[in-house]
């Protein structure tokens, strides 16, 4: 059913008077047939039907004034019910020469030009570059709470890092107890108490910002790098003995001497001899980028997640210095006081899961490095000697995960051989 409204016939009219009807209710009409004659101030116009059909209803009698937009006729199927039409707003003089202007009676709010706009007290907003803002977001710091130390009060990256490291950890929920205090470099992570929800047989634990970063990086590494691994068990009895003596000297210097500095030193030496392990792979340019510097990362597990502080130029540092650095970096990691410098620029990583008693593992390469050395627990084991005699020796299991796109098993084997040589005969570390 079609409701036909008195159209704007473009001659500047807004209303007219019905002079004559050409159709009756119930009459059949064809498109174009004249429906009625309307008189306006300017002309008398015959208004044609827009469609074929039957006149269901007529609104307005001869002599009535109708406005543009008023429903005048309903056309439809014979016998159809004709509902009351809706009223339309009056259309004004719609002159335009071209186009169709929307004409409406809608009234806008009165202008408040000369009223003062209500002033909201401004929220405190930090000044910072987009890079700094992103960093704050990633480290979970609300940048607007910081006081900037930069020019004009700008919040600098240092300000953000300081805040990130100094942030209190969220209070744990009653049911979750923290495991052992930070004594060894690796701890099992406590479940993040903030945001824990319990329902039915499930509990949802939200990740910390660091946790999210770790998750992302692990997935990236495994997705991009085809991992392969070789394992070995190194007889470190000589090293154990050597360390026992050296430990005493180190303590006098105030340094706690673990096995890590020795392994780091050995790894640095091997990397110099097999540079392909101190590299990264560029997929777009299909190149291996060999690094001429040796920044060895040490994986540290913190309650919030994994951090990998880096010892810069490990090849140039003596054992004691390495020991000192390992100790201080681990502490800073646990206290979240590491600087950006201290976690950037790594070329090779070592991870010590032996500290929690694990024998072997298959570590995940820290993207975009080429390899990672996993270090297990040293245990005493019976070993068959050269003269077929059984002896009790100290055995260190190690695993080397490597990027199989450009490192093959042969190279990995060579790496292991060299590493073993250094760790079986620690005096070689001094001689190199």
């Amino acid at each position, binding site marked *: 059913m079609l409701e036909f409204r008195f*159209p704007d*016939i*473009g*001659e*500047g009219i807004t209303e007219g008077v019905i002079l004559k009807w050409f159709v009756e209710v119930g009459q059949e009409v064809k*498109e*174009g047939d004249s429906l009625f004659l309307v008189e306006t101030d*300017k*002309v008398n116009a015959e*208004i*044609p039907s*827009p469609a074929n059909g039957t006149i269901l209803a007529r609104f307005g009698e001869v002599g009535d004034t109708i406005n543009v937009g008023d429903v005048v006729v309903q056309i439809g199927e014979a016998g159809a019910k004709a509902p009351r039409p809706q009223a339309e707003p009056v259309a004004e003089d*719609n*002159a*335009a*020469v*071209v*186009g*169709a202007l929307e004409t409406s009676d809608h009234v806008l709010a009165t202008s408040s030009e000369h009223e003062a706009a209500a002033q909201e007290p401004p929220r405190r907003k930090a000044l910072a570059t987009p890079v700094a803002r992103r960093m704050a977001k990633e480290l979970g710091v609300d940048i607007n709470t910081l006081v900037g130390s930069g020019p004009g009060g700008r919040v600098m990256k240092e300000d953000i890092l300081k805040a990130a490291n100094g942030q209190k950890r969220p209070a744990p929920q009653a049911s979750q107890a923290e495991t052992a205090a930070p004594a060894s470099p690796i701890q099992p992570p406590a479940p993040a108490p903030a945001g824990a929800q319990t329902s039915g047989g499930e509990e949802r634990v939200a990740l910390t910002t660091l946790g999210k970063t770790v998750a992302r990086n692990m997935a990236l590494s495994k997705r991009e790098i085809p991992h392969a691994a070789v394992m070995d068990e190194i007889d470190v009895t000589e090293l154990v003995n050597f360390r026992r003596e050296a430990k005493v000297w180190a303590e006098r210097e105030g340094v706690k001497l673990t096995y890590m500095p020795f392994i780091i030193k050995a790894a640095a030496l091997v990397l110099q001899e097999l540079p392909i392990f101190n590299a990264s792979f560029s997929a777009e340019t299909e190149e291996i980028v060999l690094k001429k510097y040796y920044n060895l990362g040490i994986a540290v597990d913190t309650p919030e997640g994994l951090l990998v502080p880096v010892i810069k130029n490990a090849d140039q540092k003596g054992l004691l210095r390495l020991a000192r650095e390992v100790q201080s970096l681990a502490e800073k990691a646990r206290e979240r006081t590491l600087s950006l410098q201290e976690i950037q620029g790594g070329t090779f990583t070592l991870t010590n899961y032996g500290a929690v008693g694990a024998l072997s593992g298959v570590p995940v390469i820290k993207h975009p490095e080429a390899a990672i050395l996993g270090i297990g627990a040293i245990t005493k084991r019976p070993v068959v000697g050269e003269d077929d005699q059984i002896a009790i020796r100290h055995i260190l299991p190690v695993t080397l995960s490597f990027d199989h796109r450009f490192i093959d098993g042969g190279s990995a084997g060579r790496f292991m051989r060299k590493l073993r040589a250094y760790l079986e005969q620690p005096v070689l570390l001094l001689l190199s």
Partner: protein
Amino acid sequence: MIQEYTAQLIRDYDALSGRMLQILDEYGVVKEPELMPALSDAEWLELYKTMVLTRAADDKALQLQRQGRMLTYAPNTGQEAAQVGPAAAMAKNDWLVPAFRELGAWLYRGVPLKTVYLYWYGNEYGSHFPEGVRVLPIAVPIGTQLHHAVGVAMASKIKGENDVTVAYIGDGGTSTGDFNEALNFAGVFNAPVVFIVQNNQYAISVPRTKQTIAKTIAQKAVAAGIPGMVVDGNDLFAMYAAVKEAIERARSGGGPTLIEAYTYRLGAHTTSDDPTKYREDSEVEAWKPRDPLGRMKAYLISKGLWSEEQDLALYEEYGAYALEVFRQVEAEGEPRVEDLFKYTYKEMPAHVREQYEEYLQYLEGKVD
């Protein structure tokens, strides 16, 4: 100094002569039998039918606009002879360069009515003509098309072809700088172009006497050094004859001509214009008897070639045809989104493609 032209009409009806060429008067009587163009009765009847089609299609478009189905439309009422006559005088490969009020010429030259309706319906395919139809699209900025016409004509010459270009403009357009520049160029380069000014006495509300105080528009040709002539625009015979002579002059290397078709805009400027605001009804009424269709009908009936009944039937038939064509336009008139983006350049540049794809995504409800 009045130029000497060899062809008869331009010699006798030259712009400064003060005379207007008329062959058929408003009563349908041939006043200048020796000037009658050599077309057969059947051919004149065909031309008349084209004028009836023009009128019927025009009226139907107006009706449809009143129903809110057609957008703004510029009617041709009263100017059919000034459009069909010249179109009929053109050869197959001649070019037509319109302004925007030449329905009769477009239809005669092969632009389908559906395409014309598509244009006014608001779809760009209304300017996409069939292969081989040498008609340029409507030019909305007034007068700009005349330069195109001169260029088309010059190109024909350069290519060694003897095609002629026929260009249209209104009386309003003759006040533009472009009009003057184009006539001048055409003269300098001896371009094979015929300029037709449809002087329908109005440029929206501005009457011809306020557009220029020159006595005729045709005399503006004198300034450019080209022949000009005033013709009764409502006389199909005269329009045909004058334009035919001008076309042949151009085709044989005689250069451009300006023809002023003296006619009247019986309708409004467009469907959104109200002429009663600026002109008297009595003036309109005075011009109605001079309607080009009326006098041709009278002529054809007087020669026993036509009848009132046939006339009415033809008008109705064409009206129904026009309506049917419009229904097709309504059914197909929405453009594809891709078309909006595809034709700005030959190859869609990257930034445009990006915008297009982003918009498609938005339409599919996938919002970022």
